[in-house]
């Protein structure tokens, strides 16, 4: 637990430009290593478990987390509506 805290705090304690630079650097490394994939080579990418969004079965989980936690959004799900009162 403390281990995860140390690392999240390390990242949060960095200044905004440093955080942005690290994020942009990681994204650049990822994108620059891209190779062109032909349609017939996409069988693994087209596997139903490879989708880059939430699955239907996760919907209720995301719903209760958006009520029980202060953060929401950036997960292609609902980002408003409903009161979540209890």
């Amino acid at each position, binding site marked *: 637990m403390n281990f995860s805290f140390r690392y999240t705090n390390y990242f*949060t304690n960095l200044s905004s430009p440093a955080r942005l630079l690290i994020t942009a650097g990681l994204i650049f490394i990822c994108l620059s290593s891209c190779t062109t*994939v032909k349609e017939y080579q996409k069988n693994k990418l087209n596997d139903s478990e490879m989708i*880059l969004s939430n699955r239907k*079965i996760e919907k209720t*989980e995301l719903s209760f987390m958006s009520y*029980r936690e202060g953060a929401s959004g950036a997960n292609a799900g609902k980002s408003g509506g409903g*009161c979540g009162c209890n």
Partner: protein
Amino acid sequence: MKKITLSILALYIGVLAVFSQTKPSSDSAYRQRKLTFSEANIVSSYYSQDGNNSAITGGIGTEKLTDFSNSFSIKLTRVDKKWRKHSFDAELGIDNYTSASSDRIDLKANSSASYNDTRIYPSLNWTMEDDKKGLTWGAGASASREFDYLSFGSQVNVAKKTKNRMGEYGVKLFTYLDNLKLIYPIELRTGAFIPRGEDYPMAARNTFGSTFSYNQIINAQLQISILTDVILQQGYLGLPFHRVYFTDNSVHVEKLPDSRLKTPISIRASYFAGDHLILRGYYRYYQDDWGMTAHTISLEPVIKTTAFFSVSPFYRFYSQQATKYFAPYQQHTAANTYYTSNFDLSTFTSHFYGAGIRMAPPNGILGWQHLGALELRYGHYSRSNNMQSDIVTLNLTIK
């Protein structure tokens, strides 16, 4: 003679060409335009939580709650004259929940109408995929209704593939226009806040948001998605039945600013690590103008024992820094402009872990051809402030 021979040859080739073409029959065109059933999904889940920091009783007291949720969705598709694929999704969800803390709106009641409620939420979505242009358009509308809350949502989205079809940019604009009944704690109902029968005073809460996304195929086994939202909420953003006890033991209704700007950013990756293993990862950084920051990280390895059966254990870690308006029971003073004792807005960490199984045999579940897939998933959630919950979900896919 040569001219005649060439003319006959040209005519022959012409006739041959006409008959060798696929007949653009009205029958085939009709088949394309006809709306066809694609799949239907039934998702049922049972959620149960308990804790001891209810916002209704000022940050102390039971948070016991159960929610039985059911939704049914159906997807229809058709291809138009320009070979664009149209998908229509219709969904109806019904939740029935019980909440011990909601029962404490009236502290003297043993049990009241607030103890349970039903939420109904229908939605309709349309998507048009133009594969030739690499373009996708979409629009949708939704509604949600429960006793004290009514919400109408709408959204439009567009996505465009890059020239080499390895990436895709997307933009989504959405809005939720909500109305809530101002149900105050019994002891604080004075003046304009005294309901006349079921006629409670109303307040508005509106959400306007935009999502920007970029998906990229890295190689034949790895793809990533970067997504960011800009969400502005305006109106009554607290809840009228959340109590706050000040240091002098006086009781007040939670008071929060009437505007909140949220700016989360996330990255998601899916990696086919081998013939039997897929790794799904997700990270999100969140911040808003209420002083809250949060990190979310999750990892889900999917172990495919066969092409039709998979097991997926998962783990999610979440850490949030409290909003500047939060303080626990009897910590706020009259000097505070805004105040809440809602522990959902406090500093905490949470762990969510569990496992799911998925079966999708080619001849259907239990030999029933139409029952295409079955998924079952269980998760346990624990928060550092002692709130615990469990959720079990079943998803049946009919094809």
